[in-house]
């Protein structure tokens, strides 16, 4: 590329590492707006089809197809922007790829081989073969699509977790070589991070399902669809929001044990000592102080069931630390080579995530009250419905905030304690090339986002359609008054 831009002094000032990071952040954030929604919605497609398989009610069939269409519209953006991610390790992070290829490539290949084929092939059947195959096979296909997407999340989280808490390898200097397959795959953070992530995407989808239900009730149309969506979304939402407590706890414990610098940044803790749990606050990185309101020792308690467990502060983790002395009994890692992430961003993102989690609970209560009212044939409150319609913003933000904690919080490392982010870039890719492609990504992804939004909103407006086409089963009339009866029977799934 020197040939093209060698003479352009303007570009020389740009930092290729920073641009590569911006590009990756943009692409992965955009990718992860759609992927959680499609993985989560895949469950609702399968649930709806399970119900239709039992009831043979054409309204249930219409609901399956409704969710399948929204799923597909979202899924395809996830697929398309996922190609970017698979390519990006090689294109933008060549030295990273050379370093981790022995470990990181295998889960990517396995993800494609064992999950992507499963999802994409059976999605083809769900979308196009309703009347070509037996109902039982169709049902199995719907579940296989979801199983495939949940499995793909496992593979990519194995890869990502290895970057967070590397295990089962030996460091050969220029590359990390795998020495223990299961040790690397089931590294200390894989299970906790998988459960945390998959639970979060189902929460997101259940809030979207409730939002669409609330929209129908507000517009006084598709009333039984609306009630059903709120009921299903609420049921799944309650289960997954409760499950998030142990899952989030597991992950926080892993961070405390394995990534002490990240934990210190999350709580803005500068000095060694028991870790407080801040409720809110502000970190001044220049004066190295954190001001805010917190519960003393509570993070120590959560991570180790002892409020007095000492964790290293940022002043300690800024330099190399040996944890073998036993001073930091909660830390399980042997040592840390030193280096802190940007503290305030990590701190704020973490506390935003926790605060948004609290909002999720409030929204579930609102939805619960609304549903109770519907079941008693009361008119739902308009305000409650509006709140529910905008409810999905909470889990969307929450998921992004959580990933910012995970990814910013492990800086300056791309592979924790092994390879610095700045050393992972592609030496041959120049700043101008990165800048050009960033501009193109922003432009193209904006187009995709607008298209997605228009189409999904159109699909929601159209709603589940029971049409009397020749190949469709006969339409059975269900009165709107029957809403509670229909809604009440959902819980068994």
């Amino acid at each position, binding site marked *: 590329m020197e040939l093209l831009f060698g003479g352009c002094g303007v570009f020389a000032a740009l930092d290729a590492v920073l641009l590569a990071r911006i590009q990756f952040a943009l692409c992965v954030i955009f990718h992860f707006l759609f992927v959680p929604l499609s993985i989560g919605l895949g469950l609702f497609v399968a649930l709806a089809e399970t119900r239709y398989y039992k009831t043979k009610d054409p309204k249930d069939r219409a609901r399956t197809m409704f969710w399948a269409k929204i799923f597909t519209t979202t899924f395809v953006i996830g*697929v398309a922007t996922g190609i970017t991610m698979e390519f990006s390790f*090689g294109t933008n992070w060549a*030295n990273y790829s050379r370093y981790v290829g*022995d470990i990181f490539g*295998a889960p990517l290949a396995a993800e494609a081989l064992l999950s*992507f084929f499963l999802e994409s092939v059976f999605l*083809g059947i769900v979308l196009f073969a309703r*009347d070509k195959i037996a109902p039982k096979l169709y049902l199995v296909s719907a579940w296989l699509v979801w199983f495939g997407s949940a499995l793909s999340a496992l593979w990519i989280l194995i890869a990502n977790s290895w970057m967070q808490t590397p295990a089962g390898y030996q460091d050969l200097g220029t590359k990390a070589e795998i020495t223990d397959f299961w040790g690397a795959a089931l590294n200390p953070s894989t299970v906790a991070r998988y459960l945390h992530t998959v639970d979060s995407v189902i929460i997101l989808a259940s809030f979207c399902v409730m939002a669409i239900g609330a929209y129908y009730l507000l517009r006084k149309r598709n009333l039984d669809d609306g009630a059903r969506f709120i009921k299903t979304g609420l049921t799944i939402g309650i289960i997954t929001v409760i499950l998030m407590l142990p899952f989030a706890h597991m992950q926080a414990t892993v961070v405390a044990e394995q990534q002490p610098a990240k934990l210190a940044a999350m709580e803005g803790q500068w000095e060694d000592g028991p870790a407080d749990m801040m409720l809110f606050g502000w970190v001044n990185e220049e004066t190295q102080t954190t001001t805010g309101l917190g519960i003393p020792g509570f993070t120590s308690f959560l991570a180790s069931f002892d409020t007095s467990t000492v964790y290293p502060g940022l002043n300690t983790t800024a330099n190399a630390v040996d944890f073998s002395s036993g001073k930091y009994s909660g830390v399980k890692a042997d040592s840390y080579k030193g280096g802190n992430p940007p503290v305030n961003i990590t701190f704020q993102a973490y506390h935003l995530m926790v605060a948004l989690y609290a909002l999720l609970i409030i929204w579930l209560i609102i939805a619960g009250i609304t549903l109770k009212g519907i079941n008693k044939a009361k008119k739902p409150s308009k305000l409650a419905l509006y709140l529910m319609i905008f409810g999905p913003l909470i889990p969307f933000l929450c998921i992004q905030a959580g990933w910012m904690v995970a990814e910013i919080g492990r800086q300056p490392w791309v592979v924790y304690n092994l390879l610095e982010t700045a050393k992972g870039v592609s*030496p041959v890719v120049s700043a101008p090339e990165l800048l050009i492609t960033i501009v193109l990504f922003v432009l193209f992804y904006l187009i995709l986002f607008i298209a997605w939004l228009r189409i999904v909103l159109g699909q929601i407006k159209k709603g589940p359609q029971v049409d009397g086409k020749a190949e469709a089963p006969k339409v059975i009339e269900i009165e709107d008054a029957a809403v509670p009866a229909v809604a009440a029977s959902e819980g068994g799934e």
Partner: protein
Amino acid sequence: MGAILTTGSAMHDGLAILWFLLIAVLILGYFILDGFDLGAGVLYPFVAKKDNEKALVRRAIGPLWDGNEVWLLTGGGALFAAFAPAYATSFSGFYLAIMLVLFGLIFRAVAVEYRDRDTKWKKFWDGAFFIGSFLPALLFGAAVGNCIAGVALVGAGSTAHLAAGLAVGDYVGGFFSLLNPFALLCAIMGLVAFITQGAAWLALKAPVGSEVHQRAVKFRSLFNIIELVVFVLLSAFFLLFVLPTFDGRSGMLFAYVFAGVFILGWIVARLFMNKGNDLMSFLASNLIPIALIGITAASLFPNLIPAAANPEGVVTYFFLPGQDIVADSITIFSAANSQLCLTAMTIITCIGLPLVLVYHVIIYRTFRGRIKEEDLVEY
């Protein structure tokens, strides 16, 4: 070019060879399966004029394209998992070209799914489907051509490059030297092969007597001829200018065998074409991707990305070589990931590949036969 060093262990070498073959199989799977839907995308504006004809072309690949494309993702992942340095060098070295392929694939994927749901933007999605199919169909061949001929790589002795922060094995030829005559010929070969596959597929799926079918049959015949002409030109260029620069490549005998397969496939496909047997001519035309991938693998082996033997030589006269490029080629042995990694990948493949084949049998059986009127209504 240095001597070919093996990994030092017979087992490890065997695994490296196995993975070279497996990646060739994955890319072949991509060529055969996604080849026809890329080709259909390139032919889309020419083979379908009316809205319902366009719907028919999209429906012919609708349930299948996504699974087909996963072959590429698996191939890319497998290259990373088996030969990480080759993945790093090719993807970062051919940066802008890869980005063009990527943007094409992104828009193509979305266009196929959104075209029907989004009537307001239908012209945009039609265009995106065509361009998104055309770019990858053209550029894959160019990448293969560059790899066969060899490219400018940083070597252990390239002190100036290493001092500038580059890594051993990094590509330093720049974007425009990728557009050398041999690579361009390969690009056209790939494009024409994709289009022929696409035409053969549309001829197989479109209702007999429909205009789409008639046009597809015409394109199939035309591009079949072009395919042979390009192959002959390419072979001549290869034998005259590229082959003499080869050094230490041990599979060339197989390249000639696969060239024979090409001719055989071409003749058989042509015979069935003339008989009007759409199914058999499609099946026979798949011998051509087999032949092309076979020739590529045979002429590369044991290299993955050969260093240009002579940067000032005939094939590489577009290079502006730095004086200190004294690279060794990236071979399957120099780039092989560890034995444990390759063993784990082999086990995963033994579990996964049979399943993948079963999925394909299911879906291709489910959607067998020509597209019917009611398929379009339901869509």
